[in-house]
């Protein structure tokens, strides 16, 4: 690392600002979904290998700890989807004013909670079939 001062000067930002929080959360949930992609591939490979290995994989993929992982993945998916759409809107040059961005932050939170609750309801409460 060079000794001259380098941007970004992290200490000058107020880390509690919603702009920073929503941005880093989008990155964090994206990385979580990359791990989810690994799980999806494992699930598909087990499915292709036949009923016996699928049953073994499903035993590995169920249980209390696995439920926590699925819950985290569902939240991550909902957040990353909503925040991603927000980014696509920003890319058109709209919604960049401070008041608009603050409003869309609330919209992002509400959309994430609503989608998470909906998916969670259908996954665990309506049928109760998910591992």
């Amino acid at each position: 690392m060079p000794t001259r001062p380098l941007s970004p000067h992290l200490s000058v930002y107020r880390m509690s600002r919603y702009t920073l929080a929503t941005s880093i959360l989008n990155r964090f949930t994206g990385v979580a979904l990359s791990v989810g992609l690994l799980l999806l591939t494992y699930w598909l490979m087990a499915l292709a290998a036949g009923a016996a290995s699928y049953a073994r994989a499903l035993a590995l993929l169920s249980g209390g700890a696995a439920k926590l992982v699925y819950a985290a993945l569902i939240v991550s998916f909902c957040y990353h989807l909503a925040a991603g759409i927000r980014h696509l809107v920003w890319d058109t040059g709209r919604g960049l004013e401070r008041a608009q961005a603050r409003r869309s932050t609330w919209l992002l939170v509400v959309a994430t909670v609503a989608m998470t609750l909906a998916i969670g309801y259908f996954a665990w409460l309506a049928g109760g079939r998910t591992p």
Partner: protein
Amino acid sequence: MSLQTPLGRVLGLGAAKEGVQHWWVQRLTSVALVPLSIWFVVSLLALPSLDHATVAAWLRQSWSALLLILLVLTASWHSQLGVRVVVEDYVHDTGLRTVLLALLTFAHVLLAAAAVLAVLRVALGGALL
């Protein structure tokens, strides 16, 4: 004073015009992933159970395998682009960063190929593979 890099001056080519490639593909894949990922989640939730017979039968339906292959390919590409930026931002050692980026790219290609092969094996039901 010229703003060109020494290499650019020597080659006389200027910019490679690929500066927005990463940004643009990240957007293209994200636009594609909106309907694909929603379709996948809704389809999984609509399945009556997640046992082998049910999921395999779902994958043999005409559109499921095609859309799932598109989802896996697009998601892997999008994930590779995203994880790449995370490594570029936080790993400062040039050697380690280069090795990590190469490994992560290989891992994503491997993941995508493995998932596509798995979908094809189920969808074609051993007829061809």
